[in-house]
């Protein structure tokens, strides 16, 4: 950790939303900057120095990304982000193989862009199975096995959930898919750079990666597309033929360079960072549990990335809690849907009761989070929860031993 440069200043909200986006690592920024100005060439210009220089940089980045996930650089397709990658994987593969197989399996807690793509494919005539999850947020492998048919073209199960940070049994899923000759796509946006991923060992055929979730900038992503056995897909953006025809458009050299450097850093530092984040996460969790009762962790603790906690605080009012901790940049769910007041569909899929789903906080820790920040956030959250509970008649009743669920409320 050479660049823990952010000593947090209390005039700014404390950033604990690393699953929404990560700050771009200053080391990554430094590598990117020359490619905006002095090395600005179009990597597809094959007629002069500037073009070749940019192309070389893009190819270095491609190799860095491939190395992190055990792939060949030729299997790395640059996109504008994980949303595009997920769309391309599902619709691209689905449409290519549609005449032979028309069944897709995914799960109810996937990112919205996977679910929306699946809904769209249903309108195009595909059958989609949405697997449920267990209370810990993980799919049941026997459900998966039961859902697979000889019509199944693709299984798409995310590696790590964006709200609750749970890690799905990717290697097992990959093995099951390979045995049945079904393509396996995984949304790796929250996983790559955080946990070890090897596309060969895990039998992953397609994987979406996001730049801005691994300390690279926004606006860049990757779709890993396996070459042996070959996965084919119908492109969504045409004209120019870049990225082996799978994704046309001028490659943004600085963003590609940033993505490559971020992967190289992650590969080098993942082990140490995991230990440090686990320590901070435990410190956070223990700090909260040491002071508050009736706090529930959503999602499995063991099969979970170290940088995520998703906690529900009983007997507080959700909006009041968010207002109370407004100097902490935390979220109640995924950023894409955070403007809506609907409780998270991920938490509901886990069977979390509506009241508890409304009072959940997603706490995302990351590379620049410090012990001091964790301590401050714990103190702040405990203080607010205690304050809100003191005002809550339900909390008072619960303290008196009344089972709130047994109360029959009068109709108004």
């Amino acid at each position, binding site marked *: 950790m050479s660049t823990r440069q952010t000593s947090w200043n209390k005039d*700014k*909200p404390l*950033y604990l*939303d690393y699953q*929404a*986006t*990560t*700050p*771009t690592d200053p080391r990554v920024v430094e590598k*990117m*900057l020359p490619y*905006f*100005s002095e090395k600005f*060439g*179009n990597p*597809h*210009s*094959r*007629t*002069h*120095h*500037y*073009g070749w220089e940019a192309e070389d940089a893009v190819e270095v980045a491609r190799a860095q990304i491939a190395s992190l996930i055990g792939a060949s650089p030729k299997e790395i397709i640059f*996109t*504008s*982000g994980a*949303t*595009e990658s*997920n769309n391309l994987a599902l619709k691209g593969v689905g449409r290519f193989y549609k005449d032979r197989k028309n069944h897709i399996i995914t799960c109810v807690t996937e*990112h919205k*862009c996977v679910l*929306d*793509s699946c809904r*769209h494919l249903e309108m195009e005539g595909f059958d989609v199975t949405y697997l449920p999850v267990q209370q810990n947020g993980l799919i049941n492998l026997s459900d998966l096995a039961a859902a697979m048919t000889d019509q199944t073209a693709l299984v798409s199960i995310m590696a790590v959930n964006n709200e609750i940070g749970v890690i799905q049994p990717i290697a097992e899923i990959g093995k099951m898919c390979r045995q049945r000759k079904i393509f396996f796509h995984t949304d790796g946006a929250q996983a790559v750079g955080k946990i070890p991923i090897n596309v060969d060992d895990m039998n992953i055929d397609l994987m979406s990666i*996001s730049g*801005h979730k691994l300390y690279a*900038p*926004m*606006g*860049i992503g990757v779709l890993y597309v396996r070459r042996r056995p070959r996965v084919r897909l119908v492109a*969504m*953006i*045409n*004209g*120019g*033929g870049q990225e082996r025809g799978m994704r*046309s*458009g*001028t*490659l*943004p050299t*600085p*963003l590609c360079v940033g993505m490559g450097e971020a992967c190289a850093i992650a590969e080098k530092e993942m082990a140490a960072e995991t230990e440090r984040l686990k320590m901070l996460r435990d410190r956070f969790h223990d700090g909260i549990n040491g002071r508050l009762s009736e706090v529930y962790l959503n999602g499995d603790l063991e099969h979970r990335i170290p940088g995520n906690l998703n906690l529900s605080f009983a007997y507080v009012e959700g909006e009041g809690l968010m207002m109370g901790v407004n*100097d*902490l*940049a935390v979220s109640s769910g*995924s*950023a894409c*849907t*955070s403007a809506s007041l609907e409780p998270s569909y991920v938490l509901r899929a886990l069977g979390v009761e509506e009241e508890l789903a409304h009072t959940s906080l997603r706490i995302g820790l990351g590379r620049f989070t410090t012990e001091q920040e964790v301590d401050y956030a714990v103190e702040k959250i405990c203080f607010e929860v205690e304050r809100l509970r003191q005002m809550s008649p339900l909390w008072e009743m619960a303290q008196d031993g009344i089972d709130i669920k047994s109360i029959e409320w009068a109709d108004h």
Partner: protein
Amino acid sequence: MNEYAYLDHNATTPVRPEALQAISAALALGANPSSVHGPGRAARRVLETARAQVAALVGAAPSDVIFTSGGTEANNLALRGCGRQRLLVSAVEHPSVLDSGAQIIAVDGHGIVDLERLDMMLAADNTPALVSVMLVNNETGVIEPVARVVEIAHRHGAQVHCDAVQAAGKIGLRMADLGVDLLTISGHKIGGPAGVGALIVNGLEDRRDLDLTASAFGGGQERGIRPGTENLPGIAGFGAAAQVAGAAISDMVRLGAMRDKLEAALRAIDPDVVIFGERVERIATTSFLTLPGTDSTTQLMAFDLAGIGVSTGSACSSGKVRASGVLTAMGIADDVASTAVRVSLGWSSQDIDIKAFISAWAELHERRRKSAESEKLIRPAA
């Protein structure tokens, strides 16, 4: 490579200092613009400022701007998302428009779209159509009569998309004056970064006649038309570049004078130089011209050795050795087209770049003349 003369601004431009500053500032923000907390809202403000800056460059309303990952994506979104079954595009469009399976509208020898042909094609079939004609050609710099295309298309009930990637920042551009329904612009052609562009839809909020179905599905960003976490640093840089490019449009006078000087100098050396589109309206920064008798590949290698970067046409296809599709569409013979190179200037171009090109060109020309002479000596009767 400070001495290198970069004359390929139509492929990409260096990022303007103001844009680089905006990019750096946005990179330091580190929040998702969709997050509701303080840092998220700060990111959202940067996004909306940039939207207004980009809108201002083309005289559109900020609410008309849909940010994309670039010109290619914006063109794809316009053509596939417009919900029109019939597409008509000019023969000199960028591959991202041309490869859409559309019917092709022929162009004349200057590369200008044939308006009578367009009128006839639209009259022959009343399937709801979208016509796509670029404002400025990326290879020749020729300005297309888009306002007249709109007049004809709208008369037939067709919508019009215009790829203005090479026009923005180089000619005054007001969406309302052009009358187009959809317009594409790109960040890295105006001194912003690559990886960002915009599709601008005239009156997006109130339009019922356009069915811009999203081609990607997800988080609902950009009003659901283009989901995915916004490329905030890219968009911030795009906005800053749009603002500077709009204000610096007078720089076209300087660049136009440089371009004219270059063309005059080459013509003085060899009156047989062909300059494509020179007799019609062109932007100030582009010259697509031949060195008679010397094929493009030889020229490109010689220019690169002399520290000059030019190209044979669009960057996407410059790896392939074949004549430009634009020149073929203009009816230019292959032996002429195969001796063409494109010189394109931009905001960072200086007189010294032009001088370097002229002297390298003169040297190549002289070499060609000498070898032609010696061939004559060896085979006088040939």
